């Protein structure tokens, strides 16, 4: 690099630049958090949804699936599964409930988690809630 450009100039760009953009990130994040009520469907964030999120986490569903595009790519997107299954909680519950314990020969299959009826309802409620978050119309179509 050229002689006119000194190390202390480089250092100042580092400290000044990163400080400035860190503050900008904080400001934007603050604004985002403030405007989330418009998109995050919080009016429907019931006790049962909260419980469903715990069921989702305690069984590591994200280890195979994506949720709004984040997670693993081994199994289908679930952010819109409520809609894909015809706006039916019952269909989601039945699917999870009747997974064969020893899998399907030769094919990928979902484990049998032995969830209670209440847990099944909670996780389905959670997936319904997520499907109603306004996320700029992602995914592009119902297949996720």
């Amino acid at each position, binding site marked *: 690099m050229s002689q006119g450009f000194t190390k202390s100039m480089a250092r100042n760009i580092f400290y000044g630049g990163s400080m400035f953009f860190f503050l900008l990130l904080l400001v934007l994040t603050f604004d985002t958090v403030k405007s*989330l009520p418009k998109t*995050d469907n919080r009016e429907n964030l019931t006790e049962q949804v909260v419980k469903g999120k715990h069921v989702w986490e305690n069984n590591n569903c994200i280890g195979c699936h994506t949720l709004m595009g984040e997670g693993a790519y081994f199994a289908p997107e679930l952010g819109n599964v409520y809609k894909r299954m015809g706006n039916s909680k019952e269909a989601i519950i039945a699917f999870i409930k009747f997974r064969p314990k020893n899998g399907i020969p030769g*094919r990928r299959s979902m484990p049998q988690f032995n969830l209670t009826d209440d847990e099944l309802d909670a996780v389905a409620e959670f997936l319904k809630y997520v499907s109603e978050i306004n996320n700029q119309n992602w995914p592009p179509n119902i297949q996720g």
Partner: protein
Amino acid sequence: MKYTSQMVAKPYFIAAIALFVGQILFGVIMGMQYVVGDFLFPEIPFNVARMVHTNLLIVWLLFGFMGAAYYMVPDEAETELHSPLLAKVMFWIFLAAGVVTILGYLLVPYATLAEITMNDLLPTMGREFLEQPTIIKIGIVIVALAFLYNISMTILKGRKTVINLVLLIGLVGLAVFFLFAFYNPSNIVLDKLFWWFVVHLWVEGVWELILGSLLAYVLIKTTGVDREVIEKWLYVIIAMALITGLIGTGHHFFWIGTPGYWQWWGSIFSALEPIPFFMMTIFAFNMVNKRRRQHPNKAAVLWALGCSVMAFLGAGVWGFMHTLSFVNYYTHGSQITAAHGHMAFYGAYVMIVLAIISYAMPMLNGRKAANSMKSQVVEMWSFWLMTVSMVFITLFLTAAGILQVYLQRMNGDASLPFMVIQDKIEIFYWMREGAGIIFLIGLIVYVASFFVGRDQPEAEMPK
């Protein structure tokens, strides 16, 4: 090696390599499960293998960073490490925490693990990369604090170099941003928003400082180029990394329920994120071309140069490919993401850790500067085997990803369901698995390089 306390780096490096082997074994298992769906089912479900694969990756890279710091910081500060004993104790605590976590994943159902570790008291589990039980996360914080204390005290009492300072800022940032792992609100949008404060601000933020610092150190040592020049480059690189990478976080806020303005902020700033990686490539090749001396450790120089190229390809080129919001709308959460994740992690962080191990290990084993030529040749073979097979893993996943995106998301009403497409693109998953096995062979060759040519004399300093 000038300071005996640098020796504490050795167990860290050995543990890193051992866990790396574990990571890849589980990678190969998952690659198999992609094509033979019931492989090891229900004993090792895919999600379990994935946790083991990704968590081992993170843990061994952290072992690598810590070992690198324990080796480099005393050397740069020109003083003994503040407390070698603390470093040794923390090594065993960290290793025990890591092994217990992995065994926990493998031996009991995840829900049981959550229950016995009382996840409900402070729920932090069940999120990608942050699957560790809460108590383990607390352990990680304690180890990190003890480590930072040890490193800071050493730097404070010794010579203060830019390389040490940048490393320290990177490591402090690593610890600070990890704290967001403890924030897990019930609101999934908020949860996702701040989850990226760990994941993105690590790999596209503070870890880049660590990467830059270690790269600069290896280059100073192997090329003998003037420190002033190297430090100036280092400052510019890390300045660009943070200036682009901080707001670049926005490329993860397109479709998770956050405001639409992130499509602008995220696309524009993250599109500039390749710049620091490109500068690293120019930097590394420039310094090697301007070298004032020939260093007998050819393998270490190869890793350093390779790292700068592969980091640019994996993070810079493959990152750019899907970072603009109108592209990401279609590619988000597809095999293209996996392709990028693999090459970026390998190129930037795996290779820099292997570069520093390659540079330091001969001295830790009592050599003056380098291993025997025989050992280096084997090591360089492993470099090519692993690097080329990683290029192919990336290419096959990219091909699978392009087809997946096309068939699933761009085909209007004729778009096909996820599982149907997975069957159609199976051939690419088979080829990925083939490349993965070559990667594993390369890794075995790498481990072997530590055992061959030990009785032979050191490689000579070329004239």
